[in-house]
């Protein structure tokens, strides 16, 4: 081969050139082949798709979130444009003052001198000028508080929160940069400080909201200041320019509104909640004696139904929708393959809590899209789809009224601990005068619609807006918890009417059959299960031989314990007790439209499988609501509504059926014996309305004795009340520690060995319940259920009874319990003592 080549090309130079020509052809061939490869087949398609994407100018058209209404079509939430006031971060951090001081010092010292100074000298020189500018910042906060109608503390808190948030972002970014540098340079942690890798985040150069949702008047006031600042700045610039032109020394700085240049009203699309703050006029003439006043109270209720309605927040990467329903659709290789117009991307709003969250998919809607081809100018538009409106079952006016009644407001006083709540044993905490927490539910028996659901203490938009972090770490009052649905308590004696109807239905108790309760306790050798009257201080009294109506009236434990024993001995077994309670809706979620707790309820087979005498004792305690189950106030309300309906269980709901997505609510029939319901209601009737003849036969919700003066629990004319109280034993509430010190020692919930320790007792005693079935006088059956639970409040009748009574008044005022009576003249010779 080599020799042939030499024969053809005897010149070595030419042979070498031939070699080079071959190299040239090879390289050119490679480049041509690669060009062909890139411009054909799959690479061509992928490139063209990528390019086509860039040629489309896409503008998203925002959607309108669905509105929210109450049962009477009063608007609860809507999207509307609004205004916030934002302030540049340099003002929040104080950097603005230092920058301005440096500018002032530079002007005072002259450019040349300033240039020759060291950094330290410059700082010293600028210091005397700083005070004025810091004062300007303080004045700004005060003025903004005044314009916004807020206490200065609120502005201060918002300021602190902004600084803390941006500080956290900076710290995270700097830490990440440090980690990156450590990895890149293979250095140890100690070698690189955070200062070396300080990373400025975008938020440090941005403005942040300090006032929200301004009225036009407030906005105008802000603009007056901003315009003044702009005019002043312009005039100052002219003066400086003039002085420079004439070669005169720099004039003194007379600007006083300079800081307003850092203030910026910002137009934002707002989720507006018209009922967030609502004034309610409360009649206090029917309150218990010490709280009674002749003068009505105009109470301003903040955060009306906030727990139910919820609020809005920015979506973040921890949200499920971020991965499950993203705006940008990706394939398995991480390449973008399209968009879901209803999907989520950064800065989108998403519901936080309440219906805003639970019905996010219904309310959200889908954004529209306008696409313009940049090369051809062709335009296509996909219109936005507005979110669906949602109608709640709440009566917002009733809700506001009940929230006013149950507020920690001493002018009303119902939610404060009283000595007569606990007589005779007072717990250490809550002490008389201390605020009580609790919940109330009002349910329409006909259809299971929740008319009002109140949690005390409540939350407001302000809490979510500024301090949601703090809100969710505050466990003492757990304001974030919506107690009607998420509060889980032992139901206590409120179970008894339900058990009575069930026992009669099962035939283990005759409607008029009497049981012997003269022993005062269920078991011969133990005082653990006894009637509340069977105590030393009562002279070991007993109820004697009583029927089921009397047993409910006086709330006999022994009577119902015996029913459990009868079930145990019957074909049904002890498991029948939890079975019945489950049928009443306990221990299961109702699907009311909001996040709710299921509570706990032992399963029948589990109960039967318990060792030795435990099935009997557990079943006995279950009949009086003290063991084997824990329930939410909503479940208690739904169970008693089921009793009132004669056994038809209708799941309670907060959302009107026409707004509920998915299948209709599933109801079921317990087929309670008519005599069972009759006896249970009769017992509840007597509990509320029977004064008794010998004291011990009086209804447990008949009367209270505030400061020794006897008065009826229920005093609403024209309304018939069937009630049952419950006083449920509860484990003490202990502090959940998140740091800090107690008696000089750090307090935690986990000790050095990793063992769980318990915080100090915050509250102790019994939860007080009252369930009331109410209806207008003359109606054969009640129309509404009212349930109130008062945490660690003591006697149910004494603590929750007056609250239920006021809710009944509120229902009547709102027209739910028949025609309103003619207003009686208020006799008020002497007002009661102020509630402690």
């Amino acid at each position: 081969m080599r020799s042939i080549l030499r024969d053809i090309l005897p010149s070595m130079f030419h042979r070498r050139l031939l070699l080079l020509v071959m190299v040239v052809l090879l390289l050119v061939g490679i480049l041509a082949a690669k060009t062909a490869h890139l411009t054909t087949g799959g690479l061509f398609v992928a490139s063209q798709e990528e390019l086509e994407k860039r040629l489309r100018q896409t503008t998203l058209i925002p959607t309108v979130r669905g509105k929210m209404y109450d049962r009477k079509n009063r608007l609860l939430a809507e999207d509307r444009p609004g205004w916030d006031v934002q302030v540049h971060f340099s003002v929040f951090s104080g950097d603005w003052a230092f920058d301005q001081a440096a500018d002032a010092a530079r002007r005072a010292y002259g450019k040349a001198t300033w240039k020759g100074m060291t950094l330290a000298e410059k700082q010293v020189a600028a210091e005397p000028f700083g005070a004025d500018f810091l004062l300007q910042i303080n004045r700004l906060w005060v003025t903004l508080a005044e314009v916004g109608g807020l206490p200065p503390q609120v502005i201060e808190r918002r300021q602190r929160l902004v600084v803390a948030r941006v500080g956290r972002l900076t710290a995270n970014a700097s830490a990440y940069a440090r980690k990156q540098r450590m990895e890149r340079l293979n250095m140890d942690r100690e070698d690189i400080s955070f200062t070396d890798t300080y990373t400025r985040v975008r938020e440090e150069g941005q403005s942040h909201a300090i006032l929200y949702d301004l009225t036009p008047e407030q906005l105008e006031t802000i603009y007056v200041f901003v315009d003044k600042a702009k005019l002043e700045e312009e005039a100052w610039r002219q003066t400086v320019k003039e002085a420079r032109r004439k070669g005169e020394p720099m004039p003194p700085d007379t600007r006083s509104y300079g800081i307003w240049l850092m203030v910026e009203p910002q137009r934002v699309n707002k989720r507006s909640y018209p009922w967030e703050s609502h004034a309610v006029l409360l009649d206090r003439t029917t309150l218990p004696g010490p709280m009674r006043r002749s003068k009505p109270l105009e109470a301003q209720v903040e955060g009306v139904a906030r727990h139910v309605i919820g609020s809005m927040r920015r979506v973040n990467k921890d949200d499920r929708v971020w991965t499950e329903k993203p705006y940008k659709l990706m394939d398995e290789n991480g390449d973008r393959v399209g968009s879901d117009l209803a999907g989520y991307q950064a800065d989108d709003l998403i519901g936080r809590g309440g219906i805003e969250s639970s019905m996010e998919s219904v309310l959200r809607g889908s954004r529209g899209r306008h696409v313009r081809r940049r090369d051809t100018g062709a335009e296509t538009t996909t219109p936005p789809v507005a979110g669906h409106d949602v109608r709640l079952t709440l009566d917002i006016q009733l809700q506001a009224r009940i929230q006013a009644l149950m507020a920690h407001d001493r002018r009303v006083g119902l939610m404060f601990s009283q000595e007569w709540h606990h007589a005779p044993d007072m717990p250490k905490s809550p002490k008389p005068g201390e605020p009580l927490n609790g919940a109330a539910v009002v349910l329409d028996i006909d259809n299971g619609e929740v008319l009002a659901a109140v949690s005390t203490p409540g939350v407001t938009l302000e809490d979510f807006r500024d301090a949601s972090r703090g809100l969710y770490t505050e466990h003492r009052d757990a304001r974030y918890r919506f107690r009607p649905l998420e509060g889980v308590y032992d139901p206590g004696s409120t179970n008894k009417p339900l058990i009575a109807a069930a026992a009669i239905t099962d035939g283990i108790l005759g409607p008029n059959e009497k049981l012997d309760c003269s022993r005062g306790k269920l078991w011969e050798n133990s005082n653990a299960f006894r009637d509340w009257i069977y105590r030393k201080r009562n002279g070991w009294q007993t109820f004697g031989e009583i029927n089921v109506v009397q047993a409910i009236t006086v709330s006999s434990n022994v009577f119902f314990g015996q029913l459990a024993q009868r079930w145990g001995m019957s074909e049904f077994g002890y498991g029948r007790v939890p079975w019945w309670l489950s049928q009443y809706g306990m221990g299961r979620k109702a699907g009311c439209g909001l996040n709710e707790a299921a509570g706990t309820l032992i399963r029948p087979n589990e109960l039967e499988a318990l060792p030795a005498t435990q099935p009997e004792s557990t079943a006995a305690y279950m009949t009086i609501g003290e063991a084997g189950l824990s329930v939410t106030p909503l479940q208690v309300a739904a169970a008693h509504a089921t009793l009132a309906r004669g056994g038809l269980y209708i799941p309670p709901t907060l959302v009107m059926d026409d707004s509920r997505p998915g299948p209709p609510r599933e109801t079921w029939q317990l087929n309670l014996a008519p005599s069972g319901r009759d006896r249970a209601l009769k017992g509840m009737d007597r509990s509320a309305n029977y004064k008794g003849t010998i004291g011990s036969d009086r209804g447990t919700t008949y009367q209270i004795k505030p400061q020794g003066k006897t008065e009826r629990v229920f005093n609403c004319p024209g309304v018939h009340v069937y009630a049952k109280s419950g006083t449920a034993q509860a484990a003490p509430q202990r502090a959940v520690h998140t740091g800090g010190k107690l008696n000089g020692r750090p307090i935690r919930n986990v000790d050095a060995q990793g063992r769980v320790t318990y915080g100090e007792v915050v509250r102790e005693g019994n939860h007080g319940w009252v369930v009331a079935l109410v209806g207008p006088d003359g109606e054969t059956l009640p129309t509404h259920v009212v349930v109130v639970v008062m945490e660690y409040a003591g006697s149910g009748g004494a603590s929750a009874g007056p609250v239920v009574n006021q809710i009944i008044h509120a229902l009547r005022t709102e027209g739910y319990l028949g025609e309103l009576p003619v207003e009686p003249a208020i006799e008020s010779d002497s007002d009661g003592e102020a509630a402690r």
Partner: protein
Amino acid sequence: MSEFAKQFKTLLKPGFAWLVLPAGLALTAIGVMAIDTVAPRSGNIQKTVNLPIALLCMLLTMVPHPRTMGRASFLLFGVSLGLLVFLLVPFVPRSIVPVINGARSWIDTPGMNFQPSEMTKVFFVLSLAWYFRFRKSHRSLLGLVFPFVLMVVPVMLIMMQPDLGTALVFAPALFAVLVAAGAKLRHLFSLLGLGTLLVVANIGIILYAPPHMQVLKDHQQRRVRSMIKLASGDTSDIQADAYQQYKAMTLSGAGGVWGYGAEQSREVFENFHLPEAHNDMIFAVIVNRWGMVGGVVTVGLYGVMVVGFLGVSASTRDPLGRLSCVGFGAMILTQVVVNVGMTLGILPITGITLPLISYGGSSLLFTFIMLGLVLNFASRGRAMMARDSFEF
């Protein structure tokens, strides 16, 4: 008959010059149209200022006798090295030596920014050819030392600007000249093997060695990494280090077989910004506008031109001309391979122009000077008494 007329007459006879000039002019026309697509203002300057000057210089370089140029080659090479040193002198005001894209590669002269490294390329090849003219010392390994020193000096100076792209073309030019000049292939392939080993070792170091063991600069490492990622289908870097290359590949790929055409391609580049589209990334414009056909034709024209250079080299007996044509051809081919290679994603991004096509006065001027010199060599008749050179 004047000397120039005689030269012209020689050029009219069929020969390899017929490949060189039309190919060069066709590439220039493609370049002007491509620049016009993405930067009409630059395109206008290219065709009204840079191109006339370059064509004039090409004609001028056809005038002097090769021997005259050979004698002056070392002097001119020294001048260009002096200019390269001047670029690196600290405290020279930026009004004279501007920093463009982080490099001190230009001298601000009226009309255009003059790039001494482009001038150095021409005189390096001429000096090399003049040096090897009647030597056979390069047949031994020791004899390769001086040519390598001759290469290393400008390369180092250009690297210090820094301008890696331009520095890259010197070694292949030397290699090609040595091949043509009759250096022993086993020596050259040993050196090539060593060079390849160094490149492979460097890639290995970039990919696997800890940071303190890296040889290349941080941005160079990143470019290599991003190129490898992109080539393996990993698009995670497309918003960072692979940004330019990814865009260039996308724009090229989207051109398809026939391209978008002038109007649509202009719209595409307006809305899909490609940095340095009219300059280093001009091949992406060509493929986007004229598609695969345009790209293959362009590369083919370069092939024709470089083969033409080698043909002229083969047909002339003047040893200066023989080696100069090879050196110029190698330089142009290297530039094409690196530039097109980085646009197509087979080589990492580095700043290098596409000869005759990219926007730029110095690049166009000195490429046309190379063309002029090649035509000069082609236009000289065979010296009757000349003996064959580089025949060992």
